[in-house]
Every structure is written in structure tokens, then in C-alpha cells.
């Protein structure tokens, strides 16, 4: 499958980074060409965890296929489910209860926080600082505990069904989320003190992996990667869905375009997520958590598209229905897949250490790329 790897006459060295490598966070394989320590070319080699979810979904019913998407971007599995549930609801034209919408958004933002915290720890670990990982997991554990209580699982929650939620929230949910907000607000400054202000860290991040706004759009990058380059692309703001038009929050834009800008976007997004949770946690409307839907769902003939902002960027679900009980064709436009395509452009001329730092700020989740 791979070409024979050899040193060419001009002193260039080809190295396999991955599929088993500490910095790729999974089974990503990068073929990098080095001139000394400088990267001259990078080629991603994907598919080590390709499970053909799109093909599988073609033979799963509209109630079933939602859960296979939890396994794509496992760190924002709730948002993946949300997108799929919304597309089915769009096809069925079901009005879902207000309570369900608010809880969906609450859990989404908690998931985003958990995902960003994992990213923060893992990225610091890529840069060689091992301690932040434990600090971020201290808060992340609280979130996963809340998830476990309400959704029944810690990572792949599968809390959403077409028409609402699988079950109502746990009686402790509101109290525990409030406790978490207090805890998190007192700890977020610790993150800044430990990592953001560190001179070594700033030297590693600033002016590294520059992505211009034009390139960010052309490469189809979304989420914090594009927003770090100053491209407004927050689906929650631009095309509000669910309960996002009821809350006030800012879209974080940084104009630096380098790794540090992407880092700052995610750090500030955590604070925005907390503010969204604060606005909603006291205002969960009473009512049903699920709309009445038929046992067997049938979508009308047609094509549907739903965009959702996950922790990594824009997730698009494109669904073609022939009127049956299963989708005719489904396509997941995953944020990681597009974000990865910009990597080659960003690392050219940088050192190996920078490759690791840039990959850290892209926040790649490999199952999301391979699907």
C-alpha cells in the first residue's frame, strides 16, 4: 500500500507519524517529508478506523441510525445525535416541546465544555506539559458524572430520540450543574495561569501554523480553527437552531490565524458555554420531554440538510429519503475531515515540534475523520 520509504539524494527524510504515535490521538497516519527538522511535505493517510457509517445508516431505521453517529465524533456525541434528530424532525415536521429543546442545548453546551477541556489537556500534553491534563480532567469528571446521572452514559450519551429526549432529566441535574458552574468559574483562571501566560507556551504557539481567512474558507475549515482566522462561522449564531436563538452569547473571533489564536478561541468559548448554561439552567420550561411520534417513522420523499455546531466545527447531515423507513443516502460532513485538509498547508516550513502543536490546535478526533 505504501511506497517504499527511502532517503532521497537531496537529504530529505520520509517519516511515518502514526498510525500509532502519541501525538496523533488515535489512528491517524501522516507521511511527512523532512529536510533536517523542517517539514517540506505532509500527506495524511486515513481510513484506519473507517467503519462505513454512511453505508450502515442506509439499512438502519430513522430511530436507529442516530446512535451510530455517537461513534463518529465521540467527544461531541450529543451534538451529532442532535443533528440527526433534527433532520428527522424536519422531515416529519414534528414540533418538539420547549423543555426538550432547552435540555438538548444544555447538554450540548456541557458536552462542548467537556470536549474543550479534554482538548486543553491533550494539547498541553502534546507540547510536553503533562500536568494540565489532570487539571482539565478534574472538571471534566464532574461533567461526565452529571451526564451519567441524566443520560445513563458518560461518553456516548444517546440521550436524544426523534421528537425529544429519551428520558427526563435527573432530579439532581439542576443542582449539580449549578455546583459545577461555581467550581468551573473558580478554576478557569487556573488554566490561564498554568498554560496561557507561560512564556514557553506562547513562544511555541505564536506565529505558528498561520491560516489566512481566505485559506480558512477555501479549505472548508470550521469551528475554532476558522474562527481563529477571523472567519465568522458559528452555526449557532448564523443559522440558529434548537433553543440557541433564545440565549445571548458571543461568537468568539480572533484575527491572529496562528495556533495561539485558535487556542484563545477555545478558551473563550468555554466561558461562553458556561454563560449559555447559566442562562438556561434556571429557565428549563415545564412540560413534556418528548413529542408524540409514531412507532415507525417514515420521512417524506425529498432531501434534507441540517447544520450543527459541534465542539470541532460544523457538522452537516445530508439525508436523501425515498419515502421508506430507512434513509436512501446519508452523508455526514464532519468538521474534522475538512479541518485536516488544511494541515498540509499549515505545517509547511515548520519543525516537527510545530506539527504536534498545530495538530493539537486542530483538535482532531480520528473516528470523526474516518467515519
Amino acid at each position, binding site marked *: 500500500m505504501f511506497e517504499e520509504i527511502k532517503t532521497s539524494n537531496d537529504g530529505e*527524510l520520509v*517519516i511515518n507519524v502514526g498510525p500509532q*504515535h*502519541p*501525538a496523533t490521538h488515535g489512528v491517524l497516519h501522516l507521511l511527512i517529508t523532512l529536510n533536517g*527538522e523542517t517539514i517540506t511535505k505532509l500527506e495524511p493517510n486515513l481510513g484506519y478506523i473507517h467503519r462505513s457509517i454512511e453505508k450502515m445508516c442506509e439499512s438502519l431505521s430513522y430511530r436507529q441510525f442516530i446512535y451510530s453517529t455517537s461513534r463518529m465524533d465521540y467527544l461531541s456525541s450529543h451534538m451529532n445525535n442532535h443533528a440527526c434528530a433534527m433532520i428527522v424532525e424536519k422531515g416529519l415536521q414534528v414540533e418538539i416541546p420547549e423543555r426538550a429543546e432547552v435540555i438538548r442545548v444544555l447538554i450540548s453546551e456541557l458536552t462542548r465544555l467537556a470536549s474543550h477541556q479534554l482538548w486543553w489537556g491533550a494539547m*498541553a*500534553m*502534546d*507540547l*510536553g*506539559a*503533562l*500536568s494540565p*491534563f*489532570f*487539571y482539565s480532567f*478534574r472538571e471534566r469528571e464532574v461533567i461526565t458524572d452529571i451526564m451519567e446521572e441524566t443520560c445513563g452514559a458518560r461518553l456516548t450519551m444517546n440521550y436524544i430520540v426523534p421528537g425529544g429526549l429519551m428520558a427526563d432529566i435527573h432530579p439532581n441535574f439542576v443542582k449539580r450543574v449549578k455546583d459545577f458552574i461555581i467550581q468551573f468559574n473558580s478554576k478557569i483562571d487556573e488554566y490561564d495561569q*498554568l*498554560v496561557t501566560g*507561560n512564556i*514557553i*507556551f506562547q*513562544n*511555541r504557539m505564536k506565529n505558528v501554523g498561520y491560516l489566512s481567512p481566505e485559506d480558512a474558507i477555501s479549505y472548508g475549515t470550521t469551528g475554532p480553527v476558522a474562527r481563529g482566522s477571523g472567519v465568522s462561522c458559528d452555526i449557532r449564531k448564523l443559522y440558529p437552531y434548537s433553543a440557541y436563538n433564545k440565549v445571548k452569547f458571543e461568537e468568539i473571533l480572533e484575527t491572529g490565524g496562528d495556533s495561539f489564536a485558535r487556542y484563545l478561541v477555545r478558551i473563550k468559548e468555554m466561558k461562553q458555554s458556561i454563560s449559555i448554561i447559566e442562562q438556561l439552567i434556571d429557565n428549563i420550561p415545564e412540560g413534556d420531554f418528548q413529542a408524540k411520534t409514531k412507532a415507525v417513522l417514515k420521512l417524506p420523499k425529498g432531501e434534507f440538510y441540517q447544520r450543527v455546531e459541534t465542539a470541532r466545527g460544523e457538522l452537516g447531515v445530508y439525508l436523501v429519503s425515498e419515502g421508506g423507513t430507512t434513509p436512501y443516502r446519508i452523508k455526514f460532513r464532519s468538521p474534522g475531515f475538512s479541518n485536516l485538509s488544511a494541515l498540509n498547508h499549515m505545517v509547511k516550513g515548520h*519543525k*516537527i*515540534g*510545530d*506539527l*504536534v502543536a498545530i495538530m493539537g490546535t486542530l483538535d482532531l478526533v480520528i473516528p470523526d475523520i474516518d467515519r
Partner: protein
Amino acid sequence: MFSFQNMTQEIHSWLSSLMSETFVMLVEMTIVGILAIALFAFLGLVLVYMERKVAAVIQLRKGPNRVGPFGIFQTSADTLKLVLKEGFMPDNVDKFLYKLAPFVVMITAMLILAPIPFAKGVQIWDINIGVFYLTAISSISVIGILMAGWASNNKYSLLGAMRSGAQIVSYELSAGMAVLSIVVLTGSLNLGDIIASQEDGWWIFKGHIPAWIAFIIYIIAVTAETNRAPFDMAEAESELTGGFHTEYAGMRFALFFLAEYINIFIVCAIGAILFFGGWMPFHIGSWTAFNHVMDFIPSFMWFFGKTFFLIFLIMWFRWTFPRLRVDQLLNLEWKYLLPISIFNLLLMTLVAIKGWHF
């Protein structure tokens, strides 16, 4: 007062009464050799345990706490595991160099133990060029690392070894300059003399600001020289998957690992000797009463206390800072540390000539 000097004298005279002079020397050499190896192994175990506990405290964890009380036998169990593991060797390695490399690194580390005074009168080899010997021998370990990287037939190892070579060679200059500035003050290369010159106060206090600058540069440079984070370019596990020891397993890996910790101990011991007076208790000029009270604390406790404090500092760095990039690492040395330390050495020379120090 308890003294090691009396003990060694007693042993020597007892042995002399039993056999001829040549045999006495042979027996003594054997004893010292065994003691050195025992110290080597024991220090390795203690330092690995300490590292894991320090890391645990910094990272809100408990650290090893299952094997023995407070997990103190954890590192012994780990070493046992490494000894029992297969001495795996990949295909196409340069077999001779591959096997030799860990021993070069380890033997270098052991050789440096020779002139270090662990306590008053406890010194394996009291030579008059002690400092020179230390700087000369410590630069051999880079050869072992380069050997390991080259012989492993692995691109990651090679990159790690090359980084390590560039790094150690450059940082040795700064470390050497910092050491020299204390030599300038004392006028002697003999470690015993250097310690004796600090009887009325440690150089870090007596040497004004230049001594502080020298100490800070020394700590930065030796952190880099021992390949510790934030300067762990040679290993850089998130970049090079382990660097020069990627292809090593079992006991060969353990030797690298132990040598790393012994090197930390050694550089910290040298730092303690040069700047904090080695085994010399904390004395203040002519306060005789105070000095006498301090003398009641045994000299080996002073030495190990100071050394372990410095080791703790270096461990603290590792668990706090992110890693530098390789070009930033070399920039730091050649553009900042080296000019500063050269200037500092000149300043120190001026201080020494004019006698401005206490």
C-alpha cells in the same frame, strides 16, 4: 561527633594489620566499587520513586501507593519487571553499538560519582582537578546517546540523538562557564578546597549577584544537559515517540533510565557543592555559636538535603513547563545564556580580583 572520617580510618588500620599494603588497596577498591554500584542502584530507585510522588502531588494524584507502605517498593518491582523482560533487539541494528550504548551512558554516570564528597571525609577519589574531571567526563555521555540513536536504525531515534548531541554540546558551555565562575572565586579546581572555602558562608550568599546569575544559568543548563523537560528534546515522546531509546527494551532501557536519574543527582550534587557548600553546614561569618549549633547536624544530611532540594526544583520544572522547540532551545543557549554567562564570568573575575565578595 559522628564522623565518617574516623570510620574509614578505623577500617583502613584494621585491614592494614591483617594483610600487606597491596592487598589492603585491592580490598578497599573492591569495597568502594561495590558501594558505588549499590549507591547507583539505590539512588536510581529513590529518585524514580521521588519523581513519581512529586509528579503525583503536582498533578492532584496519589502516585504509587500499592506496593509496600506508601508504595515505596513500587520502583523495585518495576526494576524487577524490567530485568525479567526479554532483551529484545530489532532487526538490522548495529549490534555492537546497540548493546554498548547503555553501558557507555551508565559508566559515564558512575565515573562522575568518583570525586564527589558525599559527607565530610567521604570521597572516593580526592583529586586536585575535580571540577575539570567532572566537566570532562560528563561530556562523554552524549556519545552513548548518539551511539544509541545511530545504532537503533530508527529515524525517530536518529533525530532524537542528533537533537541531543546539539543540545548537550551547546549547553555544556553555559554550565562550564557557571562552574568556572565559582572556580574563579575559590582559585582551586579541587572540590574539597571549594567546600572548605565556604566555611564562613556559601558562595551563593557570598558571591553577590554574579553568583545568583551563575546559579540560575547552571540550573537551566544542567536541566538541558540531562535531557529533562522542558528541554527533553532527545526523548520528546509526543514528537519522537521516545527519541533515542525508542528501540530499547528491558534492562537496556532501564540502564538509560537509571543513568538519567543518576545524572540528575550528580548535576544537583555539583550545584550543591559549588553554590551551597556541599556538606558544609549553614555558617554565617563569625557567628561562632550559631555555627556550632549548625555543626551538630551531620554533614551527609546537609549534602543530601541540598542535593535533593535541587532535584526537587528540576522535577518541579518538568511537571510545570511545556517543551521548547528545538530551534528555540538552541536560540536560548547561543543568543541569551552563553553571552550572559561569559559576561557574568568577567564580572565574577572582577569581583574575585578586587575581593568584593565576603
